[in-house]
């Protein structure tokens, strides 16, 4: 019964779970990884975008190197090697930001290079590949990349909107501005608030999914029971006792002529 229901929706369910985990297991809001660059660096939407893209590049590069390096990244110095590799990968990132985005480079300060040693890069990537294998580990890394990107972008947008009344430099409607939104203390508070919102949203979605799943299971059981009830002839022949079969055979002849009466019998027996 359950296999008949889960086969077509299995892939969709897995995708829904994976998407839900972007919020319920967000690496920053829930896991507490790499909060430092988000708190101080993501003061505007542009900064948040740059941080998210830089972290994505570093994590993808490191995961590729870990996959090629294999056992090398399982030794106790894996964090150091991972930090060195990500610092090497940072060279093109730093060059592009310094050359083409000088304002954002000054605004981000030391917090963009700090991504090289942040826990989401040097800890999460090697552990994910070592514990889950390459395929599932890579999917987990992509999930963390998207989760971190969403977090930095969201925090940057909120802080720029609160602080300057703009989003990506474009005016956005607002009732009031809070200029201190760019300071680290507001970063902590905003991350705390957004983390609570993410937890609540994930809990509500899971609760609704659970209710939907219970309803689906109940509906399937009702359908299966109805299907079983629609096969009365096979049920009648198997349910008649052998001892009484000779006597009842004479009785069934008129019953067969009257199918409506015969159809009612299994219902009454039940």
């Amino acid at each position: 019964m359950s296999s008949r229901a889960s086969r077509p929706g299995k892939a969709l369910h897995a995708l829904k779970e994976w998407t839900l985990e972007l919020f319920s297991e967000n690496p920053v809001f829930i896991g507490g990884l790499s909060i430092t660059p988000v708190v101080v660096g993501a003061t505007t939407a542009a900064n948040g975008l740059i941080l998210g893209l830089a972290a994505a590049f570093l994590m993808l590069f490191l995961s590729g190197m870990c996959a090629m390096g294999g056992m090398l990244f399982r030794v106790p110095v894996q964090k150091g090697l991972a930090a060195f590799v990500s610092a090497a990968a940072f060279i093109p990132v730093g060059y592009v930001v310094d050359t083409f985005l000088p304002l954002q480079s000054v605004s981000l300060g030391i917090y963009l290079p700090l991504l090289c040693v942040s826990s989401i890069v040097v800890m999460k990537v090697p552990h994910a590949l070592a514990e889950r294998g390459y395929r599932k580990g890579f999917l987990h890394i992509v999930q963390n990349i998207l989760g971190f990107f969403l977090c930095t972008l969201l925090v940057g947008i909120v802080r720029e909107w609160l602080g300057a009344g703009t989003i990506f430099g474009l005016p956005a409607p607002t009732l009031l501005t809070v200029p201190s939104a760019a300071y680290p203390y507001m970063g902590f508070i905003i991350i705390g608030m957004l983390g609570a919102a993410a937890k609540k949203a994930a809990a509500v979605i899971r609760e609704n999914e659970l209710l939907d799943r219970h309803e689906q299971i109940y509906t399937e059981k009702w359908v299966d029971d109805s299907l079983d009830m629609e096969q009365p002839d096979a049920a009648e022949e198997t349910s008649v006792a052998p001892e009484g079969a000779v006597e009842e055979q004479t009785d069934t002849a008129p019953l067969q002529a009257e199918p409506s009466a015969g159809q009612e019998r299994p219902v009454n027996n039940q």
Partner: protein
Amino acid sequence: MTLLLEFTNTFLLVLLFENTLFARALGIGRLIRLIEHPATILPFCGILTGMTTVSSLLAWALTALNQWFPIPSFGKPLAFVGVMLVVYALTCVVWGSFFKSSYNTYRPLLSPAMFNCTVLGSIYIGTRENLSAVSALGLGLGTALGFLLAVIIMYYGQKQLKKLDIPESFRGLPSEMIYIGIISLAIYGFIGSSILF
């Protein structure tokens, strides 16, 4: 006397007013994990103190060489992580050779204490401010002890938070972030907006 004043000035500034955690948010993730395992707080902070102090001094030396071998800004993370790797390797060799039993006990804390935002952040700050060797020493010590101070404050704060009737969504990390934010706000009340990031 001048050297002592210079050291004390930098040390107290970084310990209190430009606290590693509350003012610069360096090492938040590590702090969250440490307060859940209080037995590892002192050993971790002891190792961190050594790492930040030695790394700050080596980075100061690297900056002195920068005059002859300039390092572009996008290459600095690689150079500084290289310094951290050298310090890590030396620590493992020296500690493992002379104090093997304690090395085996605290080895799992070595790489988290070395490769984190606190150490790299202190190196960056020291090299950017063009500090002297004595000030770099004060910066390294002050960074690690400021981290220890922040961990102690957060540890007892978290214990009090657990006793309160906090809504389910705010339990754990969200309430801790708001708590850190309020303490950070108090520190910014002292220093204003003079910190350069």
